[in-house]
C-alpha cells in the first residue's frame, strides 16, 4: 500500500516511520528539508521537498499511484487544501486531514465530507474521560 504523508512535523514523522516499519510504501512531503531528520536513519521511504499544494510536488511524490494521503502539518488550511487536491483532483481513495480547530474540523467533515481529525478535540475528550473516571471512582459518584 502506498501512502503519502504531507507534513513532516513530529506527528508526520512518527506516522511515516511507523507505517514504513510495518512494510508500507511511504513518501513524505515537506517544504523544509531539515524536517526530514525527524525520520531517523531507519526510514525506508522517499522524501520530497516542496509544498504539498503544488501539483508538481505531489506528482513527484507519486500521488497518481497513492492509495492514501495523510495531511498532517501544523497548518490547518494547508492540510485542508492538500486533502481537497488529493481527493478531488487526483482521486486518492483515502484522505485523512489533521485540523486542529474543532469547529473547522467539523465544518469540513460536514460540508466537504473530509475525513478530518481534530487532535485537540480527541485529546481533550480523552483526558476529560480520564478525569471523570478518576473522580467517580474516588468519590463513588456516578456521572
Amino acid at each position, binding site marked *: 500500500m502506498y501512502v503519502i504523508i504531507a507534513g513532516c512535523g513530529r506527528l508526520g514523522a512518527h506516522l511515516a516511520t511507523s507505517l514504513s516499519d510495518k512494510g508500507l510504501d511511504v513518501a513524505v512531503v515537506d517544504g523544509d528539508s531539515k524536517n526530514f531528520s525527524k525520520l531517523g536513519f531507519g526510514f525506508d521511504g522517499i522524501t520530497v521537498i516542496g509544498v504539498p499544494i503544488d501539483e508538481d510536488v505531489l506528482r513527484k511524490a507519486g500521488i497518481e499511484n497513492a492509495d492514501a494521503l495523510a495531511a498532517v502539518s501544523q497548518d490547518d488550511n494547508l492540510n485542508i*487544501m492538500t486533502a481537497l487536491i488529493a481527493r478531488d483532483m487526483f482521486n486518492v481513495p483515502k484522505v485523512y486531514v489533521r485540523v486542529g480547530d474543532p469547529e473547522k474540523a467539523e*465544518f469540513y467533515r460536514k460540508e466537504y465530507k473530509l475525513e478530518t481529525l481534530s487532535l485537540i478535540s480527541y485529546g481533550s475528550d480523552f483526558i476529560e474521560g480520564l478525569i471523570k473516571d478518576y473522580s467517580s471512582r474516588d468519590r463513588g459518584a456516578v456521572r
Partner: protein
Amino acid sequence: MKIAIIGGGKVGYYLVKTLLDRGKHSITLFEKDEDRCLDIAEELDCLVIRADGTEVDSLALAGAEDSDVLVAVSGQDQDNLVACQIAKTRYHIEKTIARVNNPKNHNVFKLLGVDATVSSTGIIAQLIEGELSLGDVHTLLTFERGELELIEAVVSKDARYVDKKISELGFPKNCIIVAVYRSGKVMIPSGSTVIRVDDKVVVMTLTRNKENLKRFLE
C-alpha cells in the same frame, strides 16, 4: 456594496483604498497582526477586525455574514481558499474572489468552487510574453476564467485574407473580429469591411478555438 476582505497586507490595504475611492462601500477587513490592524484602522474608513478570517465563525462575529462579496487576498493560497469556501458554504456569500500566488492554483481553486481568481504573477508573465511573442499573433487578455481570449494580430502581406471582405474570409467558428486598427484609426468592422496589409485585427475567441484561429491568421 458590502465587502469582506481577508488579509491586510499590501494587496488588502490598497484594495480597501481603491474601493473606497471608487464608491460608497461598506468594508470589513480581517487581519491577524495587531499593529497592522491599528495602522489600517487609523488611516482608512473601514471596519478592521483583528482575527483569523479563515475561522468558521469569523464573518458572523464581525457582522459580515451578509456581505455581497468576499475577497481573500492573504499571502497564502490555502488561507484564501478556505476563506472562500467558508464564505460560500456557511454564509452563502454570492461572490468569492481569491488571490492565488502560484498561478498553477487557478485550476484547483476553480475546481473547488471559488468564483474568480487573480494571480499577479500570471498576469505579469502574460504581459512579458505578450511583448516578446514571436510572430504577429498574441493574446491581449484572458477572461471568464480562461474560457475567452482577446487576440491581436498584424496582417502581413503574405496572409491569404489580405484585401478580402470579412464576410468572405471563412473565419473559424467561435471567433469574431471585434476591432480593426488602420493607420492610427480604430474601426468596429462589419461584414463588408476589407482587411488590408498592416491592419491590426483584434479577435475575440473561445480559448478552445485559439489554435484554429492562430493557424488561420498566420
